[in-house]
Each structure stands twice: as C-alpha cells, then as structure tokens.
C-alpha cells in the first residue's frame, strides 16, 4: 500500500481532487465567486487525463451541458454559488425527473441576490431542497473540513451514480476557501460506484423500466446503440412522453421513493459528548467548526452539551434527531441564515423540546463565543 500524501490544500481544490478520484471526466460551468477555484482546477487537470472541461456562456448552460455530458456516459460535475444555484434550478429539476446522475457544488455566499459575494453563508439550505419546482428527490451533503470535502465529493458521485439523481455538495465560503491539512487516501482506500448499465445489445432495453430487484433503471449512454428517448415530460418505461395520470403518478412516486426508501443508506452524521447531554448543538458545514469549539469549552465548564454534525443535509436525519431529543431537553441550531435548517428540527421533535435558532446573516462566521453564550443562556 502506498503512503498517503499529506499536504495543505484549499477546500475548493479538495473538491476537484475528490471528484477526480471518483472518476469525474466532465465539467461544465460558469465562473462565480467563491466557487471559481473549482472551475480553475478542473480546467487545469481534466485535459491532462483526457477529460472534458468547458466554460459555458451562463449558469443555465453550465447545468445543461453537465447533464448532456452525463447522458453521453461521463461522470459530470458543475460548481456555482447562490446566484448561479438559482439559475441552475430548472435543469436540476430536469436531471431529477430524467434521472441523470450529476454533481452540483454550491459554495454558498451571503445572499439574497448578489449579496456579499466573498462572505460565507448557509442561506441555500432550503433552496437545495425546494429550489426547483414540483416534488423531486434531493440528496445534499455538507462538508466541514478540507478532508471531508474530498471524501464527500466522492460520496456525492457515488450517490448520484447509484440513485441516478443530481446530488448537491453544499460547501460554504468558510470551508471552500480555507487551506488545511489533508491526508489524501490511496486509490485502494477509495470506494467508487459506477452507474449500472444495460447489457450490450439488449434488444428489449427500456430506458426507464425498473426490473424486480433493481434500484433504478440501468442507464445506457448515447451512441452505444440503444435508440432511447430522454425527456423532461412525464414519461413511460420507454422514456416517451405521456399524459396518462397513472403513468405520471407511478413515475414520480418511484423517483421519490428511491430516495425515501433508502434514507439509512444515504444519511450520514456524527455525534460527540452525547451520553449525558441535556442540550444538543446541531450544526453543519463551516458553522460546525465553531459549534465544536463552543461545545468543548462548554464541557470544560461542566455544561452537559452534546454535538451533532449533520453530514447529509437532505434527506434530513429525521429518525436520529427525534431520538436525540427524547433525552435532551433542548436543541440549538446555529446556522448562517435566519433559521432554515432549524425548521426541520422543529418539525420532527416533540412539543416539549426547546428548539433554539442562532442565525447570523452579516457575512461573518458564527464565532464559538456566540454559540457558547447561547448555551450558557439556556443551561
């Protein structure tokens, strides 16, 4: 086994390195702060391995070309920030309904609108869930460190390929722009999942038919000899448009259920200091780092506080959060918005659990002291 390489790396760069390790060979995007380094690294690295990079004319085109790349058989990614994430939403819905695997990185910055382009934010959490119209499945992961950015980018590709769905990596400016130590796993330590493909020459291939025991329909690439049709309209097992209410209902339920029936496979979280915790701090992304510092200090002061890191943002780790609050009396949710993820916590916990939101929207990170002060206020 080769030794792991240890180096100082920026979060955005780690995202690209992770994507390459996962087998990404196609990137299409549009420059936007604070995600631009992702495009720059892709432009630098992809041609060297015969991969494809293109800077498109706008954010919408970046998303569209990413879907096109995936349909032609390549593992595809695009990256953006809030304003671009808004523009990409229409085609994200397309990828969800047409079941095209792809990874969308959103390095969140302070909004709405152009907002504070260089300032961190977690304001796109609900947009990740509800940004595109209509009911649609969502998988979103949020890294808290440079190493985790590397690992979760690989995970995003694996989930996208496995479930044939767009997957979001919800970075933020804090993690995307900081440089820290990363030990790069050796290739044999990395697990990579590739989309299930139909058997070559299968005359009976139906592009959207799920056979018994299959999670999703096997996915052919354009140019392999399967003359299949892909559309953003509701479609039958062949992929052809249909207005039939029964077909529409069956299709959308299948697409929703492939995620909701496999939540345990998708949901990832970590816990610390939970044994006797009377209060739980639930955090994600860059803010988790402040939360961890605050909780450690609180513990040193004898306060019974636990720490929950939501790694999978969507689907929401509902079951576990409900369990936690059967013991803890209160749950504090610090986030760089005015209370988005906290709404999910409120939705699932019992009425006698005190849910506290700590929001910040001035473009600065939440400090450990601000979280500690809130903990002390409650306990």
């Amino acid at each position: 086994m080769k030794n792991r390489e240890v180096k100082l790396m920026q979060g955005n760069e780690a995202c690209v390195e992770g994507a390459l390790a996962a087998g990404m060979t196609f990137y299409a995007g549009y420059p936007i702060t604070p995600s631009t380094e992702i495009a720059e690294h892709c432009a630098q690295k992809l041609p060297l391995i015969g991969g494809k990079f293109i800077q498109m004319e706008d954010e919408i085109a970046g998303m569209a070309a990413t879907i096109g790349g995936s349909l032609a058989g390549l593992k595809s990614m695009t990256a953006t920030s809030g304003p671009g994430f808004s523009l990409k939403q229409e085609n994200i819905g397309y990828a969800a309904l047409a079941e095209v695997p792809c990874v969308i990185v959103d390095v969140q910055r302070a909004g709405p609108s152009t907002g504070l382009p260089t300032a961190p934010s977690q304001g796109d959490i609900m947009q990740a869930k509800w940004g595109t119209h209509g009911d649609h499945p969502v998988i979103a992961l949020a890294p808290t460190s440079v190493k985790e950015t590397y690992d979760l980018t690989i995970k995003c590709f694996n989930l996208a390929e496995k479930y044939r769905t767009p997957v979001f990596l919800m970075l933020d400016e804090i993690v995307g722009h900081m440089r820290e130590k990363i030990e790069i796993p050796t290739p044999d330590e990395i697990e990579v999942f590739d989309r299930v493909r139909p058997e070559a020459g299968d005359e009976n291939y139906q592009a959207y038919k799920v056979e018994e025991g299959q999670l999703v329909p096997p996915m052919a690439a354009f140019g392999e000899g399967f003359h299949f049709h892909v559309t953003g309209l509701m479609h039958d097992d062949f992929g052809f448009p249909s207005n039939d209410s029964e077909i529409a209902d069956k299709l959308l339920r299948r697409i929703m259920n492939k995620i909701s029936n496999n939540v345990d496979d998708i949901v990832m979280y970590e816990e610390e200091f939970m044994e006797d915790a009377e209060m739980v701090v639930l955090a994600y992304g860059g803010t988790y780092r402040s939360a961890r510092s605050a909780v450690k200090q609180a513990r040193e002061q004898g306060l019974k506080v636990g720490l929950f890191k939501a790694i999978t943002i969507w689907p929401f780790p509902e079951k576990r959060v409900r369990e936690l609050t059967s013991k803890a009396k209160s749950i504090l949710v610090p986030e760089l918005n005015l209370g988005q993820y906290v709404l999910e916590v409120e939705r699932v916990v019992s009425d006698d659990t005190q849910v506290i939101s700590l929001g910040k929207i001035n473009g600065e990170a939440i400090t450990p002291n601000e979280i500690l002060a809130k903990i002390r206020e409650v306990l």
Partner: protein
Amino acid sequence: MSSELIKNKFRTDRLPHIWCPGCGHGIAMKALAQAIDNLGWDKKDVCIISGIGCSSRAPGYMDFNTLHTTHGRALAFATGVKLANPDLKVVVVTGDGDCSAIGGNHLIHTARRNMDITTIVFNNNIYGMTGGQYSPTTPTNDFGTTAPFGNIDKPFDICKLVEAAGATYVARGTVYHANPLIKLIEKALLNKGFSLVDAISICPTYYGRKNKKGTPVNMMNFLKDKAIDVKAAAKLTPEELGDKFIMGEFKNTQEPEYTEEYQKIVDRFKKER
C-alpha cells in the same frame, strides 16, 4: 420510398404526431430524416436534441439517440453531449422562440465556438405550443395573442444573427421547397462546425388565423411566391426584391472546430506523458 424512410428512421409506434393539420413541421422533420438517410449515417451515431415547443416534439418520433430538454437549452445540452462524445453527430431541432428568444444566448455562443452541431430551426414566426404569442421572428405589425394591436417588435433574421456570431454553415429553406431543403440540411450535416438551417415553416392554426393568411395551401403558396434564391436575389435591386425573402446558402466556410481544438490540447499532454 417514403414508407421505407418512415419505417427505418421513425418510431412508428409513436405516430401520428401531435402537430395540427396543415402544419409545416412534418415536412421539415421528414427533410431531416431524408438528409440523414441520404448520407447513410448509422442511427447509433446520430443524436437529435430539442428544447420546448412544437418543433421540439420531433426527436420523440425519430428513431435515433434522442433528447428532449428544457425551453431554449437544447444547444447547451447538445454542447455537453458533443464535447463528451465527439464521435456523435449531434443535431438540434428547435423553433424560432426556443432558439432566438429564451435560447438566444446559447445560440450565439454555440455558433461562436463553432461547435460541430447542426441546428434546424422550424421557423413558423409564432409560439404555437402556447397558443399564438408573437416570437422574435414575427414580422413587425403582424398579430399574435400577445400583440392584439400589432407587433411593435422588430424581427430577428436568425441566419444573419448566427453568421455574425461565427457559424460556418448558414442556409435558409422552406417547407414548400422540400427537396432543396433536404439538400441544404445534408450540406449542413456534413459541415464540420456549427451549422444552421432556417427552415421556414407554416402555422395555419395560430399565425395563419391571427394574420388572415388563409388556408394551409394559401400559406404554402405564399412561401412559393415570396421566397427567392440567394443567387437570383443578388441580381435584383432592393426595389425589385420588394417583400420577397431570400433562401439558399448564405455561408459555407471552414474554420477550427471546438471539439477538434480541445482534442489537440489533450493530445499535447498525451505526447508529453
């Protein structure tokens, strides 16, 4: 002969198509299928991509690799497909609104890159699918449901637009002149670079009714009478040209193509490795 073409190049179980009686789009679609057939291309190597609108239903009926995308975005999806697999022969079927309004940015930039994609515009001067609203090619003073007092917009000449933007093959045909249209599409398909054929179609249901153009036959006769070949037009003064519109081949040049230029960069590093 036609029936053989339909059997071989169409998904006959998906027909009849949804277009209105008298619509010109079926002729344009058949011209595309005929052009591909004339070139003897293998279906597995051809990818036909569309956006949203009446025109954009065509790929669903055609037995190739087919992709029906979002409104205006066909060329952006097509760029991804072509770049990912340059061996595919990528064709975009679009409409006047789809490609020159909501998709206008993608149109000029795909032309600018000289990306090897052939675009066939089923141009009927109206938004048909949504019920007859004026489009960027609706002539000034004409009527649409959103121009009840006459259109005050000036129309685009899509050919001039993409010529200026960098397309290397540009032509215009009409659904009345079906055979010449097939030839123009063939040449567009053969061009290594961005090609566009503006296929003037007719919409009797909306454009025709709103503008008192009469029956589909009258509208076809209008195309017959008003279209003049680019070579014949060159000999006429503007006064003699009057209200005629010009069809034929406007541009046919060779310039570096995007996916080939990209491959050169990849190859450079292959040699160095």
